[in-house]
């Protein structure tokens, strides 16, 4: 069976006065129902842009898009990139749903929670306002909001951040979507609330058998819920693999750098966290060769200065483990070893 979402060679470019911003560049991945794909990367690496393009929520006036994002619906495949805005709109909420980073501002301040959820429900279901509110109460109950029948009449500002994110999840799931894109769903929340929300997402995924794309910059979040991960850098996927290999067998210096920069409880005390030196390159004038070269500790090891002249391909280094690096496997193994020595 085909995965529910197949993204193929998706590129999103924004023309600006200074030149073309290649926000996401030749992205391909797929997610099946019941599976969670994490898209990891720092700010500006193209994570959100890619998912907004899949949802058809990008700015149509200012973005140039190429590639495909195919939803394999029971009625047949639909490419949300080439389909008309109206067709894509009718997929939103029903076949694919999205939750956002900041639950504080993502809910309309003037409408009650119940109205906002039932509005989403009524788009794809026949029923009165009372039916919609009843459905909203069920959903709020499901996402773990206590006294849902009372709180359904309240406004967003009467909810805490974590509760609002639960409301967002309830609203996104009200029409039983097959794909949920969660764009940094826990970034704006307290750490304790973060793990509750992640748990809820996992539970909901089981309940609705959804394909989930989890966009995050936090590898800790990834470890908790994802099955597979795409690591993005400067608009491109630099490594893609199942979650175990990302952590235990990272095959790209950038992934290694990310892992090196998160604190771990099982590591010895007194160790300094290793930052990746430098800044990501401008997306307008990407350097020739590897975009990560300027920040990469190992680029000198590659003969003929290939890192500066030749863009590395995304190669399948191991089964279902892709990485975009010129280093030989022996060199990468060595780099991995030094990572472990650090720890």
């Amino acid at each position: 069976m085909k995965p529910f979402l197949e993204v193929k060679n998706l590129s999103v470019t924004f023309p600006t006065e200074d030149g073309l911003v290649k926000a996401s560049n030749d992205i391909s991945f797929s997610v099946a129902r019941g599976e969670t794909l994490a898209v990891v990367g720092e700010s500006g690496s193209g994570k959100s842009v890619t998912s907004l393009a899949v949802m058809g929520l990008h700015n149509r006036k200012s973005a140039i898009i190429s590639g495909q994002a195919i939803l394999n619906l029971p009625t047949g495949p639909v490419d949300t990139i080439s389909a008309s805005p109206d067709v894509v709109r009718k997929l939103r909420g029903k076949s694919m749903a999205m939750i956002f980073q900041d639950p504080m501002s993502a809910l309309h301040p003037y409408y009650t929670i119940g109205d906002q959820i039932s509005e989403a429900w009524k788009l794809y279901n026949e029923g009165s306002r009372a039916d919609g509110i009843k459905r909203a109460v069920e959903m709020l109950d499901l996402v773990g909001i206590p006294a849902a029948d009372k709180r359904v009449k309240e406004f967003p500002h009467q909810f805490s951040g974590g509760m609002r994110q639960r409301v967002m999840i309830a609203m996104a799931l009200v029409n039983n979507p097959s794909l949920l894109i969660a764009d940094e769903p826990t970034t704006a929340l307290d750490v304790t609330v973060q793990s509750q929300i992640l748990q809820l997402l996992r539970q909901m995924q089981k309940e609705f058998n959804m394909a989930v794309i989890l966009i995050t910059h936090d590898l800790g979040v990834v470890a908790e819920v994802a099955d597979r991960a795409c690591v993005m850098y400067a608009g491109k996927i630099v490594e893609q693999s199942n979650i175990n290999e990302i952590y235990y067998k990272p095959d790209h210096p950038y992934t290694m750098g990310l892992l090196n920069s998160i604190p771990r409880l099982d590591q010895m005390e007194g160790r300094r966290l290793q930052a990746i030196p430098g800044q990501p390159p401008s997306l307008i004038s990407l350097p020739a060769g590897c975009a990560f070269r300027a920040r990469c500790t190992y680029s000198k090891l590659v003969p003929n200065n290939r890192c500066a002249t030749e863009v590395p391909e995304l190669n399948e280094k191991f089964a279902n483990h892709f990485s975009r690096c010129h280093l030989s496997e022996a060199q990468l193994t060595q780099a991995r070893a030094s990572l472990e020595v650090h720890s």
Partner: protein
Amino acid sequence: MLKFLAKRLSATVVVLVLVSVSVFMIFSFLPIDPARLTCGKGCSAPVIEANRHRLGLDVPVQVQYGRFVKGFFAGRTYGEGGARLSCPAPAFGYSFNRHECVTQLLKEAFPVTFSLAIGAFIIWILMGVSLGIVAARRQGKWQDKSATAFVLVGISLPTFVSGILILIFALKLGLINPIDMGRWVSPFTDPVAWFKNFMLPWITLALIFAATYTRFTRANVIETSSEDYIRTARAKGLSEGVILRKHTLRAALAPIITIAGLDFAGLLGGAIITEQVYNLPGLGRLSLRSVLIDYDLPTILATTLLAATFYVVANLVVDILYAYIDPRVRVG
């Protein structure tokens, strides 16, 4: 809600007392003697003194103020015997220049000003808000550019220029009869004549406000469109029309209620220039004449107080409306 209302109402009363005291104080310090102005050049000192007594200007200012307040609630009588004049409550005083109780003057002028304000208000709200929405939705297109041009012209043209231009055009085209100008016709006796009388003043007054409101609405709609909750609405699968009507406009137009309420209230105190250009006998012209020509203290005091009252009451109404629209500012 009741507590809130009580609090706001008492604040309103305090403001009005302060306004009346200030106006009283200003007049007592002015180097103008109202008693001297009651009669012509050949006036003798005893006559002036007699008039001063009749006007109640021979007592200290705080006593004058006390009499004013008492008169407002209980009515007021001036002079004795055959020269006795009385104004029933609510009395703002007696205008010796016009030989009429000020309340009567206000009663005559207010319907004119109200007619002018309400008609202009409807025009500018309809025009400004719809132009603003169109401009925001067609950002950068010709609709937006024309709206910007309109805003520029509307804001740059002072009312006395646009008013006179409109007046000249209307006269040249024979749209109005100059004889009818400034004749007050109640809409209840002759609605058509009323409408014709006010058409040009409405347009003149609405023009400048419509320009401001277009700009304001445009900016608000554009800003609200980029809010996260609009993106959420889109992610739900709502159509653009529903998003605009239900989600964007609700939030974008809420602040317009505030300024609209205050602008309207400001006009109820009299649109001085427009009334002057079109010779409308409203509160604006009454104030202007009282200040510039007659030094008519009771009338000035009354129009000032009236304008202040409209303003503070409008503030209160706007606050209540806002609480109704935006749940975040609701109390209790």
